[in-house]
């Protein structure tokens, strides 16, 4: 790579190196996001070592994983005492260490990866970390954002830096244009289907190409969110005018002279012509149909016209056993067409697909229809502000009239740490990002889909090509 032809990733990385030590770099972290699950032990570590946060004002916290999604307007707290203690521990730590927190009763509360862009806390060109793998989401802003463990949460609190080896550069180019009814979620599932859940290990992925740049900011966040599901350290997308328009006027984004200076730098945040990548992958957007996962890993995915695979046809023994395991867990028979699989539950929400555009897409399918008999469907907005916006647009009425439950914001059934869980054997069409065994409840069976496809499954009771429901 020549010094003058840099990738987007190189530009941001280089701007944040405090010092280099052989292969390791001490990297400065601009913003640190914190939630209740992965932080208590980090704050405890600070206390034990008598350390204070270096820059408490660069850290923002929100409880999201454990919060209930019903009865919040009534002021009903968290019923489970263990969950409650975790949220109260976060409140106490933020108060003690002087960290801004959007508490459970704050209208801005929501899933950390939904509220940070919404508030303008994460901006182009920043380095952003959080004790959460889906921090990759913020790469959509043209930022370098990645998940860390709790020891590193403590490290960032104490030093505002992290010791890192520089990952390699991969570019995934999605050319052409999507066909109607196909969304950002389908793009990213198709990418993972192609490169596998370890395909991005050791890399930062830049998503590029016309189909990516045509996406809204919400759609770009959906794609970057699941970069981690391809094993990548981070996902990112170049800054363009859409990025800058999105950022402008948000509560924490710069103003006046700062804005002019910032936006001038942001406009340079794209890969230079001629810059080289360590790996390149290409997909054609027009060839991507709506995706549905059939197994217990996001790479176990096919188009809506596909079938459950037959392990007997798999020659690699490790893969064959994986497929057998997955089909057993999922209660599926080889060669079953995806369209014949019926669902018990539908979950629309999460940091992948809990933004306003996602709710609009689901509502467009739900409008004038009814949730199929025997199906329980819920919509969980990604934040309090998404919920407000959806209600202002009347989306909640569409969902409620169709028989969906309309909930309060949080992670909810994406990982089922609160009361929202699948029962053993229940099958769910989910807009979240992980279909791992037990993710949505022990024995629960998760199929990952886009919001429109989830709504289509809700109203027909089975996986359905949403394009056929279009009026």
């Amino acid at each position, binding site marked *: 790579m020549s010094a003058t032809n840099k990738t987007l990733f190189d530009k941001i990385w280089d701007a944040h190196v405090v010092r280099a030590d052989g292969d390791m770099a001490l990297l*400065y972290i601009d913003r640190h996001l914190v939630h209740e699950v992965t932080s208590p032990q980090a704050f405890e570590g600070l206390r034990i070592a008598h350390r204070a946060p270096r820059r408490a004002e660069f850290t923002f916290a929100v409880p999201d994983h454990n919060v209930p999604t019903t009865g919040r307007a009534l002021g009903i707290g968290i019923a489970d005492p263990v969950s409650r*203690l975790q949220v109260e521990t976060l409140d106490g730590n933020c108060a003690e260490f002087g960290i801004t927190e959007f508490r459970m009763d704050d209208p801005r509360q929501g899933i950390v990866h939904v509220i940070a862009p919404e508030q303008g806390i994460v901006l182009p060109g920043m380095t952003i970390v959080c004790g959460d*793998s889906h921090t990759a989401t913020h790469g959509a802003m043209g930022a370098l954002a990645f998940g860390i463990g709790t020891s590193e949460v*403590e490290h960032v609190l*104490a030093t505002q830096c992290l010791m890192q080896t520089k990952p390699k550069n991969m570019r995934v180019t999605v050319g052409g244009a999507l066909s109607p009814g196909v969304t950002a979620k389908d793009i990213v599932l198709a990418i993972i289907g192609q490169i596998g859940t370890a395909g991005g290990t050791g890399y930062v992925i830049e998503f590029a190409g016309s189909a990516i740049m045509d996406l809204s900011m919400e759609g770009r966040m959906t794609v970057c969110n699941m970069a981690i599901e391809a094993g990548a350290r981070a996902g990112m997308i170049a800054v363009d005018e859409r990025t800058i328009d999105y950022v402008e006027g948000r509560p924490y984004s710069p103003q006046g002279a700062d804005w002019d200076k910032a936006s001038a730098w942001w406009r340079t945040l794209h890969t230079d012509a001629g810059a080289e990548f360590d790996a390149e992958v290409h997909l054609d957007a027009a060839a991507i149909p709506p995706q549905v996962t059939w197994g217990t890993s996001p790479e176990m995915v096919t188009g809506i016209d596909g079938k459950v695979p037959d392990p007997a046809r798999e020659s690699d023994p490790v893969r064959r056993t994986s497929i057998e395991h997955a089909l057993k867990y999922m209660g599926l028979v080889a060669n079953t067409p995806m369209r014949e699989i019926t669902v018990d539950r539908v979950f629309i929400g999460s940091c992948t697909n809990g933004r306003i555009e996602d709710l609009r897409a689901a509502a467009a399918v739900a409008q004038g229809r009814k949730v199929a008999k025997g199906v329980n469907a819920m919509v969980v907005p990604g934040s309090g502000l998404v919920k407000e916006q959806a209600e202002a647009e009347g989306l909640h009425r569409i969902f409620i009239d169709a028989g969906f439950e309309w909930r309060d914001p949080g992670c909810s059934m994406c990982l089922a740490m609160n009361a929202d869980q699948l029962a053993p054997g229940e099958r769910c069409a989910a807009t979240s990002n992980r279909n791992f*065994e037990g993710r949505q409840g022990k024995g629960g069976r998760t199929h990952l889909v886009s919001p429109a496809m989830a709504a289509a499954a809700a109203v027909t009771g089975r996986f359905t090509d949403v394009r056929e429901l279009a009026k």
Partner: protein
Amino acid sequence: MEAFVKLDGLVAPLDRANVDTDAIIPKQFLKSIRRTGFGKYLFDEWRYMDQGQPDMDVTHRPRNPDFVLNQDRYAGATILLTQDNFGCGSSREHAPWALLDYGFRCIVAKGFADIFYNNCFKNGILPVVLPTKVVDDLMGQVKKHAGYRLMVDLPAQTITTPGGETIRFEVDAFRKGCLVDGLDDIGLTLRHAADIQAYEERRRAEAPWLFAGQTR
């Protein structure tokens, strides 16, 4: 953090690819605000037949006889041998905490997910990546011979089999040093406080908006 120098340990095989951190430690146990006590819930959904809950007494829980760690011959194992992409998914450091608390100090695999790999080093666990063929061989040996042990030597970057065969592995020098000395990373970074300060001053001049940070 406990230093890792040499380990002569019993090996347990987990012959699965893409073992995710949700499987290593299911989410209900993440509600704990402590770092310890996760070992008894390691691989909870595979290990027990009932639904595990935090703070549950595990002594009388029904065990899944088919799960490998429930076999007597692997009791006391300190080395876990597994397939590719181990530790994928969630960033939860509870996964290495659970493995460590159970007794594992070394994990040998065809590959690891990045965040998990990194988290291991922070907790005194050595993750070792070996080529596919070598792991497949070891997997066969472990299953065949009860009491199969490996000798791991981090300073020398070798693993020695009972037959005396020596396998070399790669690990970056910085991480190796921290693990061998049991060093606290934060203390190390704080030695560079002057560099951090200088960076912040430079950056504040270049990009003042990063430091303004006030809501309107």
